């Protein structure tokens, strides 16, 4: 890979990629209530900032790069890399490849930090959003990033044990989305539901987002950012060529399109009319699902992956809310957690080729149905890592932070709105303030 050849392309992609967190921030804001709109957008901004500083200070050193210093354990005759061992605060001279990887990781962390912001909407403190984002960027994301992109043990499953090409995650389905989704779930558990969300006998009350235009516009912006993030992942990790990059971009768009249409169909069947916010979430679910394997699917398979995500998202949102009483205002758990896991497993099941030499294994990446069951096993092990190692760490981290400084605002603050309570001014000062319209009397 010649850095001079791909650096201009990478720099253009890096300039466009921030549209992904921008889109998510708009969605977080639009799906919350009007009297907390400025708080939601500021939380998103500060979460992105905290996560970026977390990556710069600690995370990049632990994420590591392939063939860079790392912490290794020897088991069953093989050396397994657990964590990067770089220098904190990105000290020392760095090659362009390292700096580009750092920039990409900053964007990944910033985008991932916005996912739980939506789940805590309308009821958590600004300081809690900042603390949770630093936890994610500085401590949790590096553990996954090292396994996905830094030459960690999971990515070596193919070379060491013959399981396909090892753990594959091109665009950050695990480190960005599933980790963000797990963080959103733990946050929703820690905070509890919004005041008035559930009535007597666990009856859920709809608390609609205050601005569907923000939500849908955010979803459209996300597409541009997502394509950039996926292509950056493909170039930085695998040195993908022009043909592969074009296929990845096409697959990303097709998956989003199929997902939005299938969500529209599901909500049309379910509620009589397509639901705008769920369709935006479905679109996002398609983008999430294709992230892991955008390089390795034929376009028809990308449509299938996206369509399945589009069904999974609205059903997941409903299941979590009605069955388990989880109040997730933006649907982040279903969109990023469930669709991300589906995307990771889809690589192991449905990959059709491409990626020769990925993770140091020769030959095309093929899924279980294309004849390589080993790839499916590697992806299952990766998902097992996310649930078995990362979920307890995320859960414990949130419990600890909440114990040190409680996340949730008082019920009076919730009633007043977080804009006024935490920021001292409303986002829309000329609006008439609503008070208790969602609360049973």
């Amino acid at each position, binding site marked *: 890979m010649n850095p001079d050849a791909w650096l201009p392309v990478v720099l253009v992609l890096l300039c466009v990629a921030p549209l992904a967190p921008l889109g998510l921030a708009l969605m977080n804001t639009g799906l919350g209530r009007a009297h907390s709109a400025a708080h939601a957008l500021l939380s998103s901004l500060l979460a992105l900032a905290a996560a970026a500083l977390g990556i710069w200070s600690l995370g990049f050193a632990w994420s590591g790069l392939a063939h860079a210093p790392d912490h290794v354990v020897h*088991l*069953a005759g*093989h050396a397994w890399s657990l964590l990067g061992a770089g220098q904190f605060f990105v000290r020392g001279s760095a090659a362009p490849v390292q700096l580009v990887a750092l920039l990409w990781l900053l964007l990944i962390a910033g985008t991932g930090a916005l996912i739980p912001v939506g789940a805590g909407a309308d009821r958590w403190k600004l300081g809690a959003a900042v603390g949770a984002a630093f936890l994610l960027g500085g401590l949790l994301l590096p553990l996954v990033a090292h396994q996905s992109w830094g030459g960690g043990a999971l990515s070596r*499953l193919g070379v060491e*044990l*013959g*399981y396909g090409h090892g753990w594959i995650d091109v665009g950050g389905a695990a480190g960005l989305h599933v980790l963000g989704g797990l963080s959103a779930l733990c946050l929703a*558990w820690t*905070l*509890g*539901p*919004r*005041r*008035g*969300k*559930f009535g007597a006998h*666990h009856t859920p009350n709809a608390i609609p987002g205050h601005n569907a235009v923000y939500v849908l516009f955010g979803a459209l912006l996300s597409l541009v950012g997502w394509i950039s993030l996926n292509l950056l992942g493909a170039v930085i990790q695998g040195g993908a060529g022009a043909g592969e990059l074009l296929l990845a971009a096409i697959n990303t768009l097709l998956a989003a399109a199929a997902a939005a249409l299938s969500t529209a169909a599901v909500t049309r069947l379910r509620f009589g009319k397509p639901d705008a916010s769920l369709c935006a979430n479905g679109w996002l679910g398609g983008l999430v699902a294709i992230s892991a394997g955008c390089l390795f699917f034929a376009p028809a398979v990308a449509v299938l992956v996206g369509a399945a995500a589009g069904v999974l998202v609205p059903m997941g949102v409903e299941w979590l809310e009605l*069955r*388990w*009483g*989880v109040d997730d205002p933006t649907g982040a758990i279903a969109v990023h957690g469930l669709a991300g896991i589906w995307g990771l497993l889809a690589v192991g099941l449905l990959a059709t080729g491409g990626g020769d030499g990925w993770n140091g294994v020769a030959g095309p990446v093929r899924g279980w149905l294309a004849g390589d*069951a*080993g790839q499916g*096993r590697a992806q*299952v*092990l990766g*998902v*097992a*890592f996310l*649930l*078995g*190692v990362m*979920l*307890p760490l995320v*859960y414990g981290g949130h419990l600890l932070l909440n114990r040190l400084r409680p996340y949730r605002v008082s*019920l009076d603050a*919730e009633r007043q709105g977080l804009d006024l309570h935490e920021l001292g001014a409303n986002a829309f000062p000329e609006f008439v303030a609503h008070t208790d319209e969602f609360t049973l009397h």
Partner: protein
Amino acid sequence: MKLLALFLLPAGWAIAVAAALLFPAARAAAFDLFCTAGLGMEIAGVILLLRVHAWTRVPR
């Protein structure tokens, strides 16, 4: 129940890892058996955590 869930999650992961180390690709059938058991423990752990937190801290 929360402690049981927090035990099941890493224990399931440990079983899956042990299966991968003991049974490389050439002995995939044994790996599948143990990895499925490990993943099953993890899913049970997630469901338990969902149950623990279901309908708690609902403000009135």
